[in-house]
């Protein structure tokens, strides 16, 4: 199952240099585990988002590899040490090869 909705981000838009900020993300996805059977007894194939990446000004700083145990509609929270103004890019990679991205601006005073 492909990613079907816009991801949501909660991150501060401003920070002081050196401040460690928390970033929270959510995306809608069934995260089909490949462990379930349908009503005819056939195994439903695995279909999950397998990689989440966070970059700032093009430089990756955090990555999560998700396995089938990650819950549907995955939530991921993590941290970032602010140093300069710029833009976050968040990327979700699906088993089917599709990708979804979201961005957020950060101003460092």
């Amino acid at each position, binding site marked *: 199952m492909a990613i079907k909705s816009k991801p949501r981000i909660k991150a501060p838009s401003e920070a002081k240099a050196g401040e*460690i900020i928390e970033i929270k993300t959510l995306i809608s996805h069934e995260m089909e585990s490949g462990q379930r059977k349908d009503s005819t007894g056939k195994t439903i194939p695995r279909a999950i988002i397998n990689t989440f990446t966070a970059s700032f000004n093009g430089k990756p700083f955090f990555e*999560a590899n998700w396995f089938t145990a990650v*819950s549907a509609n995955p939530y991921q929270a*993590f*941290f*970032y*040490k602010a140093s300069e103004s710029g833009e976050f890019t968040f990327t979700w990679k699906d088993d089917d090869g599709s990708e979804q991205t979201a961005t957020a601006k950060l101003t460092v005073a």
Partner: protein
Amino acid sequence: MQLRSWTPSRREIMEVGLASVLAAALAPRLAMATEETVAAELKKLYGDKPMAGGKIKLDLPEIAENGLVVPLNVDVESPMTEQDYVKAVHVFADGNPLPQVVTYRFTPQSGKAAASVRMRLAQTQNVIAVAEMSNGALHTAKAQVKVTIGGCGG
């Protein structure tokens, strides 16, 4: 009634009754991960390298409220500088169909080697985290999460 079977969505869980939940719980199970399969995964990653305790804080509920969405917070003590930071954290569960839960890759720019995700736990089991430091040292921590039908309080 807490879920013990591997079931798809919260909505579907809610629709099943007591008997069916129990029936599912008692139905022949899929092959489950064990302590040994977790150990085998770790061996693939790090061979026989020794692992120390300490440094990792695994923040998990004592009892899962919903086996489909169990909050998992992991926090590894580290200065997170270029010289000394946490490179990776692997999290496993030893009673799920597959042992892997999540792998995090951190950088000094992460500021803090901490992250939160939500996971599925099929039954009462241990959650194991292993952290790989930038100098190659390994640390590990383990916590049990109980998955129960509960009982009626108050």
